[in-house]
């Protein structure tokens, strides 16, 4: 088994994947949401026959197209990076993880790429209804592709539906439905796509508000704002609701992440939710890791316990309970989990040794251990801990988890308020009088992106050191390449992505300024 991996290799490989994912996620949420908004607008056009609606549809569709291409470009890199940078991972769980990626290609990508062609090139060639159906199919296709990749991601957060096969040294799928209906997958899908709808609504709201500020394209702007406000309000409420259910699932399945995003060191009942706070390093530590404490905080009493278990009396374990263990609450210490993980690893290496020495009797005896329920539930499930060097390795970066979580949640509530106000004003017909609100709406566009990226940074950095929760740390998953090679490709990717993003923003801005003139 590969040991002693250069930490620089792990860091650069993570940096490269994070870079690609963050860039990819600049473009995807807009695709997810704008595709529906465009389809809704085109539906109104087809139903009313009003050519103005067609012009509105085509305006937003142009922006959709500019954004879509670069989303695809960054997406293909992510798919292949599982192989190029995380090859041990790809083998260890490819039997489960590969399937959703392939289904994504077969079911969703072809739907998207075929009907997007009709959407853009079919205006004068196919009937109105066929064109409208194509626009809806693009929206459905892009959301379906999100479904499958999120199923794959959810599996990494909560591996289910598989058994370990010592002969092939990998996990193998035994229950496809368990993978698909993984509770994390359901929450993640709903939360993520609705956040995409939310972002797209803010995008449409912001740009339309800018038109109103410039006293241009008023017909387009007001109607777009109406649609964006309704769609946005619905989506932002859905984001809040699914965020809440995600938190509950998280507290059960990834308690360390849950404790980290609240910077909760000591577990307690009646735990309060920090609404706002600032962290500093504390004197307290676990091994070589310093813990954090609050400079100040505003807390909603008892709410964290309610979030986690629906009741103020629920005990929410803190970082210390989860790392050092808590006998009273029956929480195993990481040291104990590391011992169990090492034992599981040893059984595997002994099995491999017995096989290579053709010692059939011993191989069979060891093989039987892998079928033993106690071994699966109490030892192999901690397999990944066998790779950790010290218990504090199991703690993610707490300030990153804390700030990204709170930023995301605060912005989420702000967005709900903005949609309520914009819907009220646009229905009342007085929106143009409130120029300050129009400016606020414009300012929401970058904030939407910040909230959206924060969510992913929390989800992915908050689960460190795991690439697969409890089963495999990133250090065991990484491809054996020189850190210099990965650093070089990281730099190349950064330069290229940044240049393309700059071109995208420049083109997008010009198209918006041109408005309906083109």
């Amino acid at each position: 088994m590969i040991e002693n991996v250069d930490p620089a290799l792990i860091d650069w490989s993570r940096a490269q994947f994070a870079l690609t994912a963050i860039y990819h996620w600049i473009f995807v949420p807009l695709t997810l949401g704008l595709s529906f908004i465009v389809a809704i607008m085109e539906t109104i056009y087809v139903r009313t026959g009003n050519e103005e609606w067609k012009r509105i549809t085509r305006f937003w569709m142009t922006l959709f197209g500019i954004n879509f291409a670069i989303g695809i470009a960054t997406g293909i890199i992510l798919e292949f990076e599982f192989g190029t940078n995380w090859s041990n991972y790809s083998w260890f769980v490819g039997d489960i993880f590969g399937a959703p990626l392939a289904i994504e290609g077969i079911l969703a990508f072809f739907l998207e790429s075929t009907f997007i062609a009709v959407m853009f090139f079919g205006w004068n060639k196919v009937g109105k209804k066929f064109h409208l159906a194509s626009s809806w199919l693009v929206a459905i296709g892009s959301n379906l592709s999100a479904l499958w990749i999120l199923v794959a991601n959810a599996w990494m957060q909560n591996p289910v539906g598989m058994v370990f096969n010592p002969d092939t040294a990998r996990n193998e799928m035994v229950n496809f439905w368990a993978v698909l209906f993984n509770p994390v997958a359901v929450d993640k899908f709903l939360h993520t796509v609705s956040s995409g709808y939310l972002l797209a609504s803010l995008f449409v709201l912001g740009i339309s508000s800018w038109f109103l500020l410039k006293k241009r394209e008023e017909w387009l702007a007001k109607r777009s704002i109406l649609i964006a406000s309704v769609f946005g309000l619905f989506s932002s409420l859905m984001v809040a609701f699914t965020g809440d259910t995600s938190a509950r699932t998280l507290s059960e399945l990834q308690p360390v992440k849950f404790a980290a995003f609240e910077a909760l060191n000591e577990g307690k009942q009646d735990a309060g939710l920090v609404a706002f706070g600032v962290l500093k390093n504390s004197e307290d530590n676990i091994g070589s890791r310093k813990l954090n404490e609050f400079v100040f905080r505003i807390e909603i009493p008892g709410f964290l316990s309610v979030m986690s278990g629906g009741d103020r009396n629920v005990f929410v374990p803190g970082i210390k309970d989860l790392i050092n263990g808590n006998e009273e609450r029956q929480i195993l210490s990481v040291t104990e989990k590391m011992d169990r993980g090492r034992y599981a690893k040893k059984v595997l290496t002994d099995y491999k040794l017995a096989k290579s020495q053709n010692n059939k009797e011993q191989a069979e005896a060891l093989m039987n251990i892998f079928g033993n329920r106690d071994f699966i539930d109490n030892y192999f499930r901690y397999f990944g801990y066998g790779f950790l060097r010290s218990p504090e390795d199991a703690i993610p970066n707490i300030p990153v988890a804390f700030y990204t979580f709170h930023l995301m949640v605060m912005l989420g509530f702000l967005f709900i308020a903005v949609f309520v106000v914009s819907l009220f004003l646009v229905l009342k017909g007085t929106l143009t009088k409130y120029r300050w609100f129009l400016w606020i709406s414009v300012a929401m566009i970058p904030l939407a992106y910040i909230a959206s990226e924060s969510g992913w940074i929390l989800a992915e950095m908050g689960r460190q050191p795991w690439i697969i929760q409890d089963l495999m740390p990133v250090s065991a998953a990484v491809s054996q390449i020189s850190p210099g090679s990965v650093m070089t490709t990281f730099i190349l990717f950064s330069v290229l992505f940044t240049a393309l993003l700059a071109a995208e923003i420049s083109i997008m801005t010009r198209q918006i300024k041109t408005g309906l003139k083109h």
Partner: protein
Amino acid sequence: MTLMISYSFLQGYWWVIISLLASLLVFLMFVQGGQSLIFSLPDNDARKAMMVNTLGRKWELTFTTLVTFGGAFFAAFPLFYATSFGGAYWVWVAILFSFIIQAVAYEYRSKPANLFGRKTFDIFLFINGSLGPFLIGVAVATFFTGSQFTLNEMNQVKWANSWHGLEALINGRNLALGLTLVFLARTNSLLYIINSVDDEGLSARSINKLIINSLSFLVFFVFFMAAILFSEGYTAHPDTGNISMEKFKYLHNLIQMPVVLIIFLAGVTAVLWGIGVTIFRGCKKGIWFTGSGTILTVFALFCTVGFSNTAFYPSSFDLNSSLTIHNASSSLFTLRTMMYVSFIIPFVAAYIWYAWKSINRNKITGEELKGEGHVY
């Protein structure tokens, strides 16, 4: 209800799907072939616009096929995915680079305020058009010529040299397949343009270029095939799975699998027929023959390297680390589940065909582009 289907049948079934996707991908790389001609084929801006738009409407189809090919390989043969991508790092990263710049080039090249100017995006198209097929050809050639890697007892890959895939570029046979693919893509592209663009001048120039590109293709193809068929190949012992070298292995495979041999010969004939009728008879439908011939030929080649106890991703460094469709595949359960999913493929193919039939009614002309809202 669980169908009683054997594991080895499913491994073969999935190799057939992979072969099919690979063959469709090679055909669809006519988009890349055309891009590599962007600076030499059209003699004025109007013709360039026609050519770029003809190709541009299909780029996503090629791209999606590539992504699906990758996804299907991951799902069905994850050990290949882990071994090749994680090992031959530089080759795959170079391929990826050439595809990122393609994805945006079409959409951005004609848009105002694109920062880098149309010329830059056209250069992106040219790079993707030349490098994409070449590197994919080189990577696929290693299926026959082998790579230098070992797998440990946990099936983790270690590349045996620090070039991480770039060493494939100094092997003549790999280069030959790379160049074969470049010239085949260019040939298919010229035939495609002749068929879909209604412009006499562009057609005449295409036919002119067709001669040299199809001849170049033939030279490299014949060289590669001769080199492969008459050299040693990697054979897997049917019982133990141990890998050894066998003289004329791929020739033997073709002879042992007459169906594959027939598909191969039919494919090559169709490729040549399409080129021939275009050059000698001025036929505009050559792409139908050469295109389907390409699909058949590539399909047969993939079958040759995957079936009949052959290592499809051999290690020349450590023979027994070589991958076969049996030792590199997913589990029985996953392959079976994915087989059910694959039943949707004909339906996907049907709607792709229907959608394109609906919007491709007319040939592309300068007039057609003017009436179009979305022009690359």
